[in-house]
């Protein structure tokens, strides 16, 4: 399969200057040694708890946040350092789009649904001419399941699900090659979630777009993804195909996550034991295994040394001392 995006050793350290005259510097390592790739037309799920750096990773790919170090290759070209001319900058922008979690906040309340999409078209001059643009927007609206009568309505006149469809329309109207979906359905009702997810899958088939699907919801990721990566405190803990990951989770954290996913079968016995003990401890980042305090298979080495990534099976990578 053809690779479209590759991320190598991506890191983001947020520096907070505190104290008198900002002399003290506190460094928070939000994303550490993150490497993965996305193939053409596939969906890569990225799961993790809130604060694990999954959104930061997505935002670095679309250049909303500047990475501290590391490379992002789009179609073989490194785009992590974006100090280049506006034309090639726009070319990258056109090909890497984003769908945001909060559909209301991500739309300007003063622009109609049609104007939001038109803005994108105007920036990249995808179509010109008033009539042509209108027709194009109608076509895109049909793709995302909106009526053409809704083009001239304002965001507040739509329901949450419909607003998210506007966000999707704005992203796909540029015909990008990859879309970063930052928790696109997390703010929606479960019934609406299914509709949006199905719609996104249709669009993916039609246009051959790749998705990086960021979510904290394992069941949603299980539904839409081809491959899944699991993140914890800025590290990728495990990467595998969807089937492999859910059938044979290797990392203790992934195991706990998979076990904790609520079952839709009410006849299954209820689990009583809490899935994970303790809380996230950010002070472990860069010291030892960041999961050591919560792990049920913890051993001495976990407290002494950071684990490295090992390929346990073909395409199944895991960052844990258990697999050496």
């Amino acid at each position, binding site marked *: 399969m053809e690779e479209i995006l590759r991320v190598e050793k991506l890191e983001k350290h947020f520096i907070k200057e505190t104290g008198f005259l900002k002399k003290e510097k506190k460094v928070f390592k939000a994303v550490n040694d993150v490497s993965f790739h996305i193939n053409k037309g596939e969906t890569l799920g990225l799961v993790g708890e809130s604060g694990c750096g999954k959104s930061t990773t997505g935002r670095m790919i*679309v250049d*909303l946040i500047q990475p501290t170090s590391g490379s992002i290759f789009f179609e073989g070209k490194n785009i992590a350092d974006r100090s280049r001319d506006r034309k090639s900058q726009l070319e990258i922008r056109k090909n*890497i789009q984003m769908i945001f979690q909060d559909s209301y*906040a991500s739309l*300007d309340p*003063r622009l109609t649904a049609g104007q939001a999409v038109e803005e994108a078209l105007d920036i990249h001059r995808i179509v010109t001419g008033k009539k042509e643009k209108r027709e194009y927007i109608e076509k895109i609206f049909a793709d995302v399941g909106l009526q053409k009568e809704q083009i001239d309505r304002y965001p507040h006149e739509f329901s949450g699900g419909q607003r998210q469809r506007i966000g999707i329309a704005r992203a796909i109207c*540029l015909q990008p090659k990859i879309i970063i979906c930052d928790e696109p359905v997390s703010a929606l009702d479960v019934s609406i979630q299914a509709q949006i997810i199905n719609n996104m899958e249709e669009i993916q088939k039609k246009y051959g777009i790749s998705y990086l699907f960021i979510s904290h919801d394992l069941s949603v990721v299980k539904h839409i993804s081809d491959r899944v990566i699991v993140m914890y405190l800025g590290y990728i803990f495990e990467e595998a195909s969807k089937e492999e990951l859910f059938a044979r989770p290797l990392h203790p954290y992934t195991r706990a996550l998979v076990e904790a996913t609520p079952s839709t079968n009410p006849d299954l016995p209820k689990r009583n034991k809490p899935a994970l003990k303790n809380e996230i401890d950010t002070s472990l980042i860069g010291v030892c295994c960041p999961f050591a305090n919560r792990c049920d298979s913890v051993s001495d080495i976990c407290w002494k040394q950071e684990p490295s990534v090992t390929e346990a099976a073909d395409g199944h990578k895991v960052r844990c001392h258990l697999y050496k």
Partner: protein
Amino acid sequence: MKFLKRLLSNKLAVLGIFFILIFLLASLFAPLIATQDYSEMDLYNVLALPSAEHLMGTDEMGRDIFSGIIYGARTSVLIGVSVLLFGGLVGTAIGILAGFFEGKLDMVLMRIIDTLMAFPSILLAMFMIAIIGTGLKGAIVAVSIATVPRFARIVRSSVLKTKKNEYVDACRVLGQSNMKILFRHILPNGMAPIIVQATLTFSEAILIISGLGFLGLGADPMSAEWGAMLSNARAYLMTKPHIAIFPGIAIAITVLGFNLLGDGLRDTLDVKEY
């Protein structure tokens, strides 16, 4: 439309609009409303009480006070508009630069603004007049400079706040240029506090310039300017108070009108700043 309806349901704001309308009509149709030219002196009728001939009486030089107030409205519009144009625009520009680009530029600009802000505006205006010289022009320039800091602060905070909205990120991802993001998204959405500040600045400018006129630092005492008229009346405050009362009422009503409108706008636009 919804906004206008809500504004008009605010009784105080309507009262403010009413006062402002009187003020604007007076300045617009001054030659038609005024009974005579303000510079015309009726030396037989010096310090006259209000009568049919002189609706609000005359001053110590026999000038018609009613006409003076009507023409004075023009001066006040000139003051308000020029202060908004100079001070408001400069302040807005500084606020945009500081709020949008942040970093060192913000730091430098805001420390300058802080320094200016440390002076009370009337003191700052007097200081400027000492440099520029007295007269209406000098007073307008001085008051304009004095209004810059507050405008800059309010615009900056509004830009900073609006910039954090996710639709700004969305525009960046689409590849929109900084300029377009600023003028198409951030400013229109952060306009509310700026509009409120503009109304309040208008009245404040009139008030400060009248104050400067009263102190003899503003408009030429011979001109139709409310503060200058008040200043002239000072000597006769005990014996002929009407000379001072009418310009005083004119100032009070105009300033009150703009302040009421400003408050009304703030409530209607639901602005938390200022």
